[in-house]
């Protein structure tokens, strides 16, 4: 079995607690290993792109950070606690294509869902919740279609609605599953700006993408994976051509475990 040179964990006790800590994480579905031996620490206010081919385990990793799928080995800490306890401070943005476009719900109602945890059972969203939803809708520039049915909006607009829901949650960790998939350039740029704004107030952003340019453009760090970690560190180094070739060249099922040695690039200073 490959032993990844783990410089990040070696110096862990001295470093300040990272917002997101993944230590030797393995996730499996039944007998299928989706991810193994993944170590990465992410500081507050930072952003990480999860890069890898289809079936590399990007979505699985996001689900593991959310605590929806359990880790088979290793440990995930989110904001210093376990993933399930951290959920109230984590916002997840699914792909708009995952959702039923026939569902009878308006854009505004979808955004309001981001407030349900604050509202609680039995009660209806109050004035403050409606105001938070309205300002999130405004931030993504959808004021004029806020009361249209979600399914009637374009792909880009739907993705913006889901992003607005995450904004309304006022979370400290933002997890986005392929947020740039099938969206127009206006939406892309808007989301890039809003992600930067979220980071500037200290939020951690983790997004999965297969678009390398967008990964370089939106994130400081990248996590290159294909069932296991190929590289983690600043985008320039982690998305190095040789490493990319190594990660993308092998279809997950034919990858020999010891074919490539994982590289963890530590950020100094």
């Amino acid at each position, binding site marked *: 079995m490959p032993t990844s040179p783990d410089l990040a964990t070696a110096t862990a006790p001295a470093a300040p607690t990272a917002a997101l800590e993944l230590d030797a994480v393995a996730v499996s*579905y039944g007998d299928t290993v989706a991810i193994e031996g993944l170590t990465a620490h992410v500081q507050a206010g930072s952003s990480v792109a999860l890069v890898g081919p289809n079936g590399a385990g990007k979505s699985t990793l996001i*689900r593991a950070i*959310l605590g*929806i799928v359990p880790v088979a080995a290793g440990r995930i800490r989110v904001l210093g606690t376990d993933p*399930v306890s951290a*959920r*109230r401070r*984590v*916002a*997840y943005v*699914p792909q708009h294509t*995952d*959702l*039923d476009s026939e*569902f*009878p*719900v*308006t854009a505004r109602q*979808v955004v309001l*869902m981001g407030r*349900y*945890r604050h*509202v609680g*059972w*039995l009660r*209806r*969203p109050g004035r403050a919740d409606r105001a938070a939803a309205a300002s999130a809708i405004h931030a993504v520039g959808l004021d004029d279609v806020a009361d*249209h*049915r979600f399914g*009637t*909006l*374009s*792909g*880009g*607009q739907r993705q913006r609605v*889901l992003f607005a*829901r995450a904004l309304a*949650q006022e979370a400290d960790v933002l*997890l986005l599953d392929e947020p740039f998939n099938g969206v*127009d350039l*206006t*939406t892309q740029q808007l989301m890039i700006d809003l992600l930067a704004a979220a980071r500037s107030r200290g939020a951690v952003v983790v997004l999965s993408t297969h678009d390398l340019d967008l990964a370089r453009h939106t994130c400081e760090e990248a996590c290159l994976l294909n069932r296991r970690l190929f590289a983690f560190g600043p985008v320039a180094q982690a998305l190095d051509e040789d490493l990319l070739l190594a990660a993308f060249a092998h279809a997950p099922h034919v990858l020999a475990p010891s074919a490539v040695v994982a590289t963890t690039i530590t950020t100094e200073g």
Partner: protein
Amino acid sequence: MFAAPYMQHALIAVVIVGVIAGWTGVHVVLRHLAFVADAMSHTVFPGVVIAFAAHQSLFLGALVAGAITAVGLTGLTSRPRIGEDASLAILLTTLFAVGVVVVSRQRRYSADLTTFLFGRLLAIGARDLWLMGAVAVVAIVVLVGGHKELVMRAFDPNGTEAMGYRVTRLDLVLNLLVAAVMVTALKAIGTTLAVAMLVTPAATARLVTRRVGTAVVTSIGVAVGAGIVGLVISYEASVRGGVRLTTSATIVSVLTLTFVVAAIASRIASRPAVAMSGGSDR
């Protein structure tokens, strides 16, 4: 017509069943879970006849069987992949057959199959109404209290789980609500036709509304309305026309007719709108 106590009881019963079946049905239809209602009807029936054979309360039998089914179905469907629908179908029909065997061995008065399958709306007593009302009140509290969470779970299960809700628990709540509808509908329209009361009004509402809120109101309206209209028609037919119409079958016929009319109407209404709704981005 409603001067006789049995007609008053019947009227109150169809209103109670209509309200909780219509409301719960909207969630069932949003989740595409009509099969849960169907499964429930197959398991509540043997529960009821076993209770009958054991000289226990029929409500209790229905309640226990419904609750066990709700828990069982939640457990089964919470797995990522089931692939067991064939074995589930076999299990359900077997349970149903057990019910038929048990009921056919009874020699007591008019304990015939049809009573349990189709109910006896005109034989409902004050005691039945109290029990039905009690179950309905609990169901309504749950429907009001968990409405937005149930809707969110139907729309976006991953997002709901990610927010920290236990989706499995929400699913159990909905399955228990379906069980509550079955228990309530047992004497009024029977376990088999309760499926129609649960699914048809909500499916009708789904055709003609665009918001969950209006769908709930419409679904309850259709369920209660069809219940009353069906009751009146079967009464008139037997009293004036001398034709015996089973009340529950008449109610289901009215429901089906309403659905067909709504389907045709929405098909006609949506035709020109399709050409116009090519929404553009930017």
